[in-house]
């Protein structure tokens, strides 16, 4: 089943396969092994009824498991009307490669429910989510040992808490029930730093890129991140945090923010947090602090800038607009924002791309920490913290005894501080 609009020939799954094939050829990898790696191990499709406002509505969802060479298989669940089996399979494959690239010992999986979350109340969403979770759990596609979902488009902490609670009620004897899903609220077994993790990863990746002078030069840049002009597409969880951290901590200028209904542009730099609040209050970035707005969001991608960060949908840079992209570097925060054909065009134009399979891995890295935390049943740093503080205090005393000088307050403060969970995760 497929409801995907293929803008320029190749489907998302074909795009991913082509990109992998290119690597296979270069490596001279045995085609039989390559085929074994590329194949999706299993796909579950479920259709279930939920009573909404007195009427029975049917919902269809998928969970694809791409690889089981490491367990559990890991990957988000998205709630959107773009979801279909092909998309879920492509995203599951990306998860396999992503985990391998950043050395997180998980297989790849992905799930999706065909739904527009805006059409339903909180209570209705809870019933739909719990029913979907039940379908997944009963069929072995939700389990702390074998298949662990996470948030994605249209889902967040709230949905993860419902999924975890549903699993717990079905399996109260499973001592690790809380590890059946990651991205939970901190009060319900989540981990500090998970929400912003993918955005934080984008920031860390770009910082690291700018520590390599040869790469910086060949991408056509001078200097470091400070002052670079950035266009960001999508002010959701990933786009918002990436733009916020880069502008507040690295002096990057966010000159344009593209959303589903248009683009706001300010060459002097947009206050990301304020724009985000405005969007949450009004449902749109339009009308934010007098910043010029244009309803033609797609044109925003073609703005003159240093770094373009697509952090929303798939296939936004395609054969039709790739030639008009003027950024020097594309940082793929979203999954599959550049189609295979566009990738070839951008390559010829000399535009560097930091690929999705690496760029947005921050989320799964911190999900790994959350899963480990859940399995150990203890918060990171809880046992060591007092000991670390005491050891810091000993060092301060030793320095004072040896130098006959008091240790300055700021040094003392840093030395006697034991790391908490947030310090360790970040």
């Amino acid at each position, binding site marked *: 089943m497929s409801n995907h609009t293929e803008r320029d020939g190749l489907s998302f799954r074909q795009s991913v396969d082509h*990109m*992998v094939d*290119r*690597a*296979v050829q*270069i*490596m001279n*990898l*045995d085609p039989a*092994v*390559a085929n*074994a*790696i590329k194949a999706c191990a299993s796909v579950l499709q479920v259709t279930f009824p939920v009573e909404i406002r007195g009427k029975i509505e049917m919902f269809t969802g998928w969970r694809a498991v791409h*690889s089981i*060479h*490491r367990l559990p298989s890991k990957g988000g669940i998205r709630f959107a009307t773009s979801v279909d089996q092909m998309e879920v399979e492509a995203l599951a494959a990306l998860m*396999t*490669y*992503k985990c*391998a*690239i*950043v*050395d997180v010992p998980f297989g790849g999986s992905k799930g999706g429910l065909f739904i527009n979350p805006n059409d339903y109340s909180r209570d209705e969403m809870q019933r739909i989510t719990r029913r979907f979770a039940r379908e997944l759990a009963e069929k072995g596609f939700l389990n702390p040992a074998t298949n662990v979902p996470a948030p994605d488009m249209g889902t967040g902490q709230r949905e993860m808490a419902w999924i975890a609670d549903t699993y717990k009620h079905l399996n109260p004897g499973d001592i690790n029930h809380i590890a059946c899903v990651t991205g939970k609220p901190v009060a319900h077994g989540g981990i500090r730093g998970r929400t912003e993790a993918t955005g934080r*990863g984008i920031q*860390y*990746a770009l910082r*690291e*890129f700018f520590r*390599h002078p040869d*790469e910086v030069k060949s991408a056509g840049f001078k200097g470091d991140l400070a002052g670079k002009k950035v266009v960001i597409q999508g002010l959701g969880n990933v786009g918002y945090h990436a733009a916020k951290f880069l502008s507040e901590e690295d002096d990057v200028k966010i000159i344009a923010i593209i959303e589903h209904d248009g683009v706001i542009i300010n060459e002097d730099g947009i206050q990301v947090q304020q724009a985000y609040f405005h969007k949450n209050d009004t449902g749109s970035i339009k009308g934010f602090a007098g910043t010029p707005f244009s309803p033609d969001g797609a044109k925003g991608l073609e703005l003159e800038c240093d770094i373009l960060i697509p952090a929303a949908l798939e296939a936004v840079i395609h054969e039709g607009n790739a030639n008009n992209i003027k950024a020097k570097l594309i940082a793929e925060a979203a999954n599959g924002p550049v189609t295979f054909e566009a*990738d070839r065009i951008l*390559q010829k134009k000399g535009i*560097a*791309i*930091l*690929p999705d*399979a*690496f760029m947005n*891995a*921050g989320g799964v*890295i911190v999900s790994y920490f959350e899963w480990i935390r859940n399995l150990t049943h203890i918060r990171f740093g809880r046992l060591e913290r007092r000991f670390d503080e005491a050891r810091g205090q000993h060092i301060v005393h030793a320095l004072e005894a040896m130098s006959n000088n008091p240790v300055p307050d700021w040094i003392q403060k840093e030395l006697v501080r034991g790391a908490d969970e947030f310090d360790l995760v970040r």
Partner: protein
Amino acid sequence: MRLALQEIIEIYHRENGIEDYRTAAYVIALSKLSRTYLDVGVY
């Protein structure tokens, strides 16, 4: 994230025929994945 990008950049420069970071990233992923297949075998 830092180590992964360092590895991508290294492979990008070291392996002949790699023209972009994406291919370098996939080469890294595939070599790790194929190792598990080749070491353990197919069951």
